[in-house]
Each structure stands twice: as structure tokens, then as C-alpha cells.
């Protein structure tokens, strides 16, 4: 019994240290302007206020950045589903010449990090007139190889007999995908959607490169820019961090079983 208590206390202490930065972020965001700059640093606000959040939305354009982030992440998610789901299914369950070679090539491509091609991609998008636009930010999310393998892994569990039976009943290949495969793959669809939404929401380097127009900034890009101009306003910066972080944290906590399960399934070799 004491061993059980002791172990749990040890984990709780570790967890408290892990959560401390996030709790401190929320606490400081509720302090009066200038309060966090005292010594010793206060841990909880003496007189809690929402003034920092009000200032963020009223004078820092946070509403606009929030809408940009929401729109971009939603669009990235929808586009990724449209491009990834059919491909993942085809690679798993349709027989056609060249498929296995394609899968092997894609698997090898997983070794290449996206940053390697960023400079040429920028030039390519400039030639297409897509720099400094939502479209430019969205482009890398169409080509998600990890997502394809996540879907493929799941699709491999669909029994071939089921597909064959539908064919004998005269269903077209498209109809089979749409009405039989997609409903079965609902958990994979949800996991993929969650990954892409979180990934595009948290992405920094590519939006930083592609977006030059302040009005198009996503939350991370806007927050980094704000940090360079208003580094002294700790309480304001913490409120900005809360607005940027809390939506994805809530999404994660609500769907964490799905997320962690998907992460482990996705890391299994294809």
C-alpha cells in the first residue's frame, strides 16, 4: 500500500513539473500588465483580469489570426482527406500494375524531411502565383506520405471478400470506395483529420516563409512576430500563447485515445 502511494506520488510530482509551464502560462495571462515583471515572480495573479485578452483582440488583431489559423487548418484537413484516403485504400486493397513499386518508393521517401525542398518549393509557388496566399500555405498538406501509410495500414484490415462480394453485386469501384470502404475506415479518417489539423495549426516554418502579408498570418507566425516587437509585455505574450495553444490542447484531451492509438499504428512499418 505504501509502495503504491509512493509510486503514485512520484508520478504526480513528475506530472506537476511537466504541466508547470502550461499552468504558469495561463496564470500570467490573467495578471495585471507589469505584474509578472516583479521579483520574486508571482505564481498566481493578485487581481485576476481578462484585460490582456481584450487587448489582444482589440488592438493586436488576434481575432484575424485566429480565423486565419482556423480556416487554414480546416482546409488543410479537408484537402488532406480528399487526397490521402483514396490513395491509402488503393495502395492497400486494389490490384494494379506498378502498385508495389510505388509503395516501396513512397516508403523510401519517408526518409526525406520536408525542409530540404523548401527553397525550390517557394520558387515553384512564386512561378504559380501562390506565394503569400492561403493556397501557398496549404500545398505541403496535399502531399502527406505519412497520412497515406496511416490509411493504408488501416485499409489492410478490410476483408477482400467484402469488396469482392460488392463487385459481384455489380457495384462500381467508386461506389465500393464511397459506400463500403469509407464507412469502415471512419476511425482512420478521424485520426488522420486530427493529425493534419494539429499539424497545420502548429506549423511554423512554412507559413513563415510563404506569408509576407501581416493580414494572412497564422497564430504561430503572428505570435513570433509579436514577440519580437512587444517582448516586454509578458502578460500579453502569455495570453497570446494561451489563445494559440489551448484550442489544440482541448482537441487533444478530448480525442487522446484516438490520437495516441493512431500514433502507434502509424509508426508500424507498412
Amino acid at each position, binding site marked *: 500500500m505504501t509502495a503504491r502511494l509512493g509510486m503514485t506520488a512520484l508520478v504526480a510530482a513528475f506530472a506537476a513539473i511537466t504541466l508547470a509551464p502550461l499552468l*504558469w502560462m495561463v496564470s500570467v495571462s490573467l495578471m495585471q500588465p507589469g505584474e509578472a515583471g516583479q521579483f520574486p515572480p508571482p505564481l498566481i495573479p493578485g487581481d485576476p483580469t481578462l484585460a490582456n485578452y481584450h487587448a489582444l483582440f482589440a488592438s493586436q488583431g488576434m481575432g484575424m489570426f485566429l480565423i486565419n489559423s482556423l480556416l487554414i487548418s480546416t482546409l488543410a484537413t479537408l484537402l488532406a482527406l480528399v487526397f490521402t484516403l483514396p*490513395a491509402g485504400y488503393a495502395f492497400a486493397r486494389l490490384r494494379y500494375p*506498378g502498385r508495389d513499386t510505388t509503395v516501396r518508393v513512397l516508403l523510401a521517401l519517408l526518409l526525406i524531411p*520536408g525542409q530540404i525542398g523548401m527553397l*525550390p518549393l517557394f520558387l515553384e509557388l512564386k512561378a504559380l502565383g501562390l506565394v503569400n496566399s492561403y493556397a501557398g500555405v496549404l500545398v505541403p498538406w496535399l502531399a502527406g506520405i505519412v497520412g497515406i501509410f496511416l490509411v493504408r495500414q488501416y485499409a489492410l484490415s478490410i476483408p477482400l471478400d467484402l469488396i469482392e462480394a460488392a463487385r459481384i453485386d455489380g457495384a*462500381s469501384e467508386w461506389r465500393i470506395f464511397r459506400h463500403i470502404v469509407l464507412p469502415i475506415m471512419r476511425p482512420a479518417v478521424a485520426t488522420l483529420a486530427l493529425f493534419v489539423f494539429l499539424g497545420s495549426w502548429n506549423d511554423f*516554418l512554412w507559413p513563415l516563409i510563404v506569408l509576407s502579408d501581416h493580414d494572412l498570418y497564422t497564430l504561430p507566425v503572428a505570435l513570433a512576430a509579436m514577440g519580437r516587437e512587444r517582448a516586454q509585455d509578458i502578460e500579453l505574450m502569455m495570453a497570446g*500563447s494561451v489563445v494559440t495553444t489551448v484550442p*489544440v490542447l482541448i482537441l487533444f*484531451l478530448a480525442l487522446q485515445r484516438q490520437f495516441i492509438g493512431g500514433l502507434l499504428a502509424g509508426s508500424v512499418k507498412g
Partner: protein
Amino acid sequence: MTGLASRAERRAGWLLSAPALIAIALFFILPTVASLALSLTDFDIYALADIGNLRFVGLANYSALLSDPLFWTALGNTFWFVLLGVPLVVVVAFFAAILVNERMVAWRPAWRAVFFAPYVTTLVAAAVVWKYMLHARYGLFNHALGAIGLPPVDWLGDPRWAIPAITVFVVWKSFGYSMLIFLAALQTVPRELDEAARIDGAGWWSRLRHVTLPAVAPAAGLVAVLAVIAMFQLFAEPYVMTEGGPAQSTITVLYLMFDQGFQWWNLGIGAAVAVVLFACILAAALIPALALRIYRRRRA
């Protein structure tokens, strides 16, 4: 096997995979290959305005890099991040996994979620928070040091401390993911083996050494390789917390690529940095695998 497939099935296979394959070819493979080509040119802001100014310069960008002290600084800094960060990630993630896997501990799924939470937080926002926690005057770290009677440290303002300070942040941010890999490996430890060792009178420590550690050794290798690759891709952390300073002590390879490419518009040199970065990542991923293969062959 394709002999059995109907024409409709073969056509559907290509039609359904085509959109994704075209997107991958256009926005991933083409730019990656073009990076190599770009690194052999003097593409800069003048070529950006008029492509006629573009010249093929062979390996000039690479030799310019090799004689640029900033390149060696960036490479050296990145190696420091690897040297400090990778062992820390492995140890902290393993410790967390052991705790979360321990049957004696209550509410295990909740702790697992807590340890994983930093991994899903927005990197830039978390870096902003840590920048203030590490602040020389009113940061929590120095407050804690003061409480135990130690002098304050200028974590992000002192070139000797900036890399260790950012490394601690990176470990906090990422250990949850590695913990999952360890957890998956711990599931494979046979319970009977652990029980048998317990009945034979083996203590906690000796069971850890002789039963658990051998079972998770491959996972530790995987975690280490992934951590090395992640360290080579550090960018937002120094960009937000130190802007590469103080005295360029936190400039990383990816930071150099961004700076050369998008601050100074030397895209040719930037692409050469990208190619070097790719070579480093490829080496980090393949050398351990090759070494393991050779080692196994020797023993066989």
C-alpha cells in the same frame, strides 16, 4: 497477382492514387530534386527579379560554405544539441514510460496524457512561455535557483548556457512521443518472465537490468535515431527564444538555411545548406542501421 484483377479494378487503382501521387511529385519530389540543382547555381535576389541573372557555379556554394565560419558554428551548435539532447530524451522518456507502465501506479492513462500534452502544444507558443521562464531577472528558473541559494544564470543571454537551456525546453516538448515508443516496447516484456525473476528473489533494480532493459534496447535505439533527426531540424526554438544569439551560439543548420534563403535571398547557398542538412539526416538514419547489420553478420 495483378492477373486476377479486372480492368475496372486496375483503372480504379490508378485513378484513386493519382491525385496524391501528382501532389507528391509536384510539391515534394520535384522541389527536393531541384534543391540539388539550385545548390549548383548562384540564385539570389537578382535572379529572383530576372532569371537571366542565373548562373551555374558548380560546387562554388559548397566551397564557400566550407570556408564560412558561421557554417561551422551552425554545425557545431547542432552537434551540441545532439550530444546534450539525445541522451536526455532517451533517459527521461524511458523513466516516464516505466512509471506509466508500473501496475502499482494509480490513474495511469491520465498521467500518460499529461506527459504527452507538451508534444501537442504549439511549438512557438511553448517557446515563448519558456523564454520567460528562463528570463535572467524574473524567470522561474532563477527564482528556483535563488531559493536553494544559487546565483542567477543568464540562461538565454550567456553563450555557454543558451544551448543547454534550449535543450531542456526541447526535451520537455518532445519526450512524450518517445515515451510512447518505450511504452509499446514495454508491452512486449513477458509478464511471466518478470514474475519468475520476482519469485527467484530478484529486486526491482535487477529485474530492470536483466528483464526490462534487454527488451527495450531496440526501442531505445529507435528513440535515439529519431531524436538525432529531430535535433537536426531545430529551427523555431532558437528563432523564437534567442534569434540565433547570443553571439550566434544557437544558430542551427536549418536556421542558417532560412537565413541565407529568406533573409538574404541567397537561395543557391541556402540550397547547399539544405543538401548538407539532408546528408546529415540520412547519415543519422542509415549509419546505425548499417552498423547493426554489420555487427549481426560478425556475430553470426
